[in-house]
């Protein structure tokens, strides 16, 4: 019978109670071994139920470690969860919800958890003190040698190189009131705000509501408190404007009340259902933020306090009540506050043998103590555990009285397999601190509590150091009401705070470390994960690392996956003791998001793979794809790089041939290229001409209607920014084109000048890039093709459409704009077509061009054509180039002011030594001149070699001139025409002797343009 077997297997499971579903047993594996737990378990509770004590190994000394906590603060019980692309190292067993078939393995040990040879580090621990590595490994054979070994020993879990198959996504939402934390205070706050009609979001990290109530036995209005939780949950569920998200961690507070929250949508399942995200990252923009994040219990520092079986007292109660697990059979309880008694009573009630209850506080009365005594527990006051024994699990401990002056009385050995310890509770001030909130020290609870908060975040309940249930509830009700009110909602009657049956607690008395045996092999840990001991803190202090931030970085205190949730305050307090200063003077280290670690993929959301960044497609994209285009990206656009004939593969030679074919077609017949990607800006208004005249370096005022002109824009610092043609379509109407890459920037700049700099100019600018598909028809036969394609009434003769002329026309019934401009140096036209008709017109031109051998061409051919003509692009205009550098200094109008003109006379800009644009050809007539080569006088010079310039763009073969050509910048280049220099490419061991020529290789007179 299954149930019978499970009961026996789960040796530490209580027969009744807990939030687990005993009808749903779940098989799982840890380190290959099969176990069973129940739905509702975490991996940690299921392991404890099965009597598994050792779950992980510590970072530095590889000491065996068990489960310390029952929450996200867990420093010890880290495992590798799942496998393949879903493997997740460093997963906290205390937060992993059990599912059928769960597989986890221990990490950071070799060969096995039980036998880990790196445990030798523990023996060598005397040498491996804080910061030892700064003092050695400096000599032979070099740091890299040691580093390899250290790196292999460091790290915790191992990652994977497989890709994660799961989906991630973001979700945005706005609310009036955000409540972080679904404990009693958070629920009360949400309830009040919700009742007022506010839009409320409550996020709760765990799988259910109730917070600490799930782990305690408390009552509200004389009924079990979890009943109140259920009732509240139901009421919230009925409110349309309230959203409760469980399994959702508020991980960071950012500016203006933006809270980041991670919802683990499917982590409690073996795999996410299809189309569902594994995790969803919420951007919550809140009017008011209420932090009801509770508090985190601190361990006590005593000898061997890291042994498996030493647990937080509150976690012991969680395992008892929430999971019906007894983490041990014989317990010692030690605390500096009343939680010891509470825990001992609960343990005893669950049938655990309580060997000893130790209260580190001086003798005194207290309701809790009296209860414990009345229950027959063996209570010792002013006493503590001083040393725990047991390598793979606690077997016993020494207990002793404390003399109050750092000494101990006689020790007595107490056998036990569980030590429940409580050093008090620290409010979770993390989120409060992210938003610039200050933390104030509260001596009463020996912890930091939220102080002033500029953003108006309000902390309530345990998060504010109010540890009583009634306090938490009333705090929450009040904050919820106030928040709703602040958002403009009317508040109804304030309900009475529910009544609880709490027992008054006696004050805590901090004790930061328990004096222990002088034996140096006994370690007392402050930070369990990173193995920071009190000796490390003393050493850091001795060496002058006396700021908390130095202490942290020198000892790694609080730098583990738990970020010191259970250790920071103790460590800082110990430093304060060593410095002889009060804790608030010493302070605390800075809290940073995320509150608990967040997967990179969750941050990235859906922006992965091809959707990492949107691509843009031209109107003729599908045509290109159907006709063998190989695409390349240019400024988010996919553009044909070249076209392959059917059946031809993409080998380099083929590619070169394709390009050559395309170039030849343009020079000898006619080609068609998609230039839709060029930016197009519609400029209209009475001051449009004046405006253009100011933003372009060359004059634009005299441009007649129906004409286009090439223009250059400078940045304010005088450097060339962008170029393109601008056409005057009407009296006050212009169309500007920009380069593909700069289109967005140029538009933003124009808007800048109009809105901010010259608000007196009456001009409107709009991007029409997407409205118009654009294609350039170029080649000696271009006019014939255009004439054949054009509709009746559209005349394209040299008279009707002269060089740089602009007319409206129609092709295939589509109204088009025709521009007689050319980038290739051939007779050319640009045709602008409303985008939805782009393909129709393109096809019409192809059809009309068929008899003339029309060839579509791509970016590569266009690149060669423009290099042959010496036209510059971004390869030349790299953000450091002046007009003069590219030989266009004369274009700058001297008659007017334009952007950048004030900078042109800077000494460096008029220095005759500046590299100038030149053409380059190989002296041997055949060797390629690779782009990126550097121009030097003599390739044999040893470094550092004086550099004369560089090769900016290169055509490995200009089909038109029959040899390689290139454009480059050469110091005093204009004076060196005819000279030879060397283009060197030491990365590939190449050097080419090149002749300096004019930067135009084809038709320098431009006669082909004007036919």
């Amino acid at each position, binding site marked *: 019978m299954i149930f019978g077997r499970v009961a026996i297997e789960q040796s530490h499971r209580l027969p009744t109670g807990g939030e687990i579903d005993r009808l749903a047993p779940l098989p799982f594996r840890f380190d290959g071994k099969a176990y069973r737990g129940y739905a509702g378990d975490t991996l940690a509770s299921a392991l404890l139920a099965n009597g598994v004590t050792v779950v992980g190994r510590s970072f530095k000394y590889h000491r065996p470690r068990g489960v310390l906590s029952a929450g996200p603060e867990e420093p010890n019980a880290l495992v590798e969860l799942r496998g393949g692309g879903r493997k997740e190292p460093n997963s906290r067993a205390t937060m992993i919800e059990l599912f059928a078939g769960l597989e986890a393995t221990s990490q950071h040990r070799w060969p096995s958890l039980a036998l880990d040879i790196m445990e030798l580090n523990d023996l060598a621990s005397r040498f491996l003190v804080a910061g030892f590595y700064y003092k050695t490994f400096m000599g032979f054979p070099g740091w890299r040698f040691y580093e390899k070994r250290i790196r292999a020993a460091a790290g915790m879990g191992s990652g994977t190189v497989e890709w994660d198959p799961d989906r991630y996504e973001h979700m945005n939402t706005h609310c009036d009131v955000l409540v972080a934390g679904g404990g009693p205070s958070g629920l009360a706050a949400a309830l009040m705000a919700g009742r007022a009609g506010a839009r409320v979001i409550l996020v709760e990290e765990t799988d259910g509501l109730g917070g600490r109530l799930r782990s305690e036995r408390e009552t509200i209005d004389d009924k079990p408190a979890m009943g109140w939780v259920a009732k509240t949950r139901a009421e919230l569920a009925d409110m349309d404007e309230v959203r409760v998200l469980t399994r959702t961690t508020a991980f960071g507070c950012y500016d203006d009340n933006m809270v980041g929250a991670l919802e683990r949508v499917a982590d409690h399942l073996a795999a996410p259902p299809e189309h569902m995200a594994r995790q969803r990252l919420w951007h919550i923009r809140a009017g008011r933020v209420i932090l009801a994040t509770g508090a985190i219990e601190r361990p006590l520092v005593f000898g061997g306090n890291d042994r498996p079986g030493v647990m937080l007292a509150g976690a012991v109660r969680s395992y008892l009540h929430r999971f019906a697990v007894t983490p041990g059979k014989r317990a010692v309880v030690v605390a500096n506050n009343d939680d010891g008694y509470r825990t001992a009573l609960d343990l005893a009630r669950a049938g655990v043998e309580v060997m000893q209850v130790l209260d580190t506080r001086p003798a005194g009365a207290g309701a809790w103590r009296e209860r414990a005594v009345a229950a027959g527990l063996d209570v010792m006051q002013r006493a503590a555990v001083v040393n725990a024994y047991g390598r793979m699990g606690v077997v016993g401990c020494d207990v002793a009285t404390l003399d109050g002056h750092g000494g101990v009385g006689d020790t007595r050995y107490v056998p036990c397999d569980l030590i429940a310890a409580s050093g008090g509770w620290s409010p979770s001030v993390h989120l409060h601190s992210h938003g610039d909130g200050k933390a104030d020290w509260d001596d009463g609870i020996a912890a930091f509590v939220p102080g002033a908060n500029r953003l108006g975040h309000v902390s309530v309940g345990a998060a504010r150091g109010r540890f009583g249930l009634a306090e938490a509830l009333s705090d929450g009700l009040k904050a919820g009401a106030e928040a709703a009110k602040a958002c403009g909602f009317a508040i109804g009657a304030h309900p009475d705070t529910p009544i609880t049956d709490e027992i008054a607690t006696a004050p805590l008395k901090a004790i930061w470390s328990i004096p222990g045996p002088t034996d140096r092999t006994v370690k007392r840990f402050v930070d369990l994960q990173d193995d920071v001991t009190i000796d490390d803190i003393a050493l850091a202090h001795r060496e002058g690392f006396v700021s908390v931030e130095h202490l942290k970085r020198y000892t790694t205190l609080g730098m583990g996956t738990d970020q010191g949730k259970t250790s920071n305050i103790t460590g800082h307090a110990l430093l304060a003791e060593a410095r002889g200063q009060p804790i608030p003077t010493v302070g605390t280290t800075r809290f940073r998001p995320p509150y608990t670690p967040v997967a990179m993929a969750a941050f990235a959301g859906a922006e992965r793979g091809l959707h990492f960044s949107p691509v843009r497609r031209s109107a003729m994209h599908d045509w290109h794809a159907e006709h063998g285009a190989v695409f390349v990206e240019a400024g988010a656009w996919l553009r044909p790089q070249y076209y392959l004939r059917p059946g031809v593969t993409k080998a380099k030679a083929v590619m070169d041939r394709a390009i050559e074919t395309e170039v030849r077609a343009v020079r000898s017949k006619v080609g068609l290229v998609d230039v839709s990607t060029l930016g197009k800006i519609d400029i209209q208004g009475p001051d449009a001409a004046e405006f253009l005249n100011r933003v372009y370096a060359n004059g634009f005022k005299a441009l007649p209607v129906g004409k286009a002109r090439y223009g250059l824009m400078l940045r304010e610092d005088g450097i060339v920014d962008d170029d393109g043609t601008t056409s005057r379509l009407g009296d006050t109407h212009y169309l500007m084109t920009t380069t593909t890459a700069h289109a967005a920037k140029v538009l933003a700049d124009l808007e800048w000048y109009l*809105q*901010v700099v010259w*608000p007196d100019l009456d001009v409107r600018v709009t991007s029409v890039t997407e409205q118009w598909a654009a294609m350039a028809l170029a080649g000696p036969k271009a006019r014939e093709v255009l004439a054949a394609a054009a509709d009746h009434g559209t005349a394209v003769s040299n008279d009707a459409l002269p060089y740089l002329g602009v007319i409206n026309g129609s092709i295939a019934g589509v109204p088009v704009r025709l521009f007689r401009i050319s980038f290739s140096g051939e007779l050319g036209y640009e045709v602008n077509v409303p985008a939805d008709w782009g393909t129709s017109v393109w096809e019409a031109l192809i059809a009309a061009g068929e008899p003339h051998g029309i060839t579509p061409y791509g970016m590569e051919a266009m690149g060669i054509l423009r290099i042959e003509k010496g036209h510059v692009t971004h390869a030349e205009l790299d953000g450091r180039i002046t007009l003069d550098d590219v030989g266009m200094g004369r274009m700058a109008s001297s008659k007017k002011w334009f952007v950048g003109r004030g*900078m042109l006379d800077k000494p460096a800009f008029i220095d005759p030594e500046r590299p100038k644009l030149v053409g380059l050809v190989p002296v041997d007539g055949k060797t390629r001149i690779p782009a990126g080569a550097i121009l030097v006088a003599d390739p044999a010079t040893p470094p550092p070699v004086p550099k004369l310039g560089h090769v900016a763009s290169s055509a490995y073969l200009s089909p038109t001139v029959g040899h390689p050509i290139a454009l480059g910048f050469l110091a005093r280049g204009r004076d060196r025409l005819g000279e030879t220099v060397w283009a060197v490419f030491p990365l590939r061991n190449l050097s080419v002797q090149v002749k300096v020529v004019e930067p135009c290789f084809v038709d320098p007179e431009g006669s082909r343009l004007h036919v």
Partner: protein
Amino acid sequence: MIRIPCPHCGPRDHAEFSYAGDATKIRPADPDAATAADWHDYVYFRDNPRGPHMEYWHHTQGCRAYVKVLRDTSTHEVLAAGMPGDTLEAGR
């Protein structure tokens, strides 16, 4: 996320905007009267204060207006916002 109150669109995520920098810089109005030093100052120098900073944000993915914002650079708190021509005071 900084929420920038666009005078046209209302409060929006700063991610919808492009930062356009120091709004106290005034471009020389009369280029003929401007000296090289004036241009130099305009193009290169910034006060770069810690505290309230007058700056421009371009609502690039919104209404495409340039918005003038007074924002505290030590807290990121937006103290006021308006149109480019507005004089801003904290708390407005």
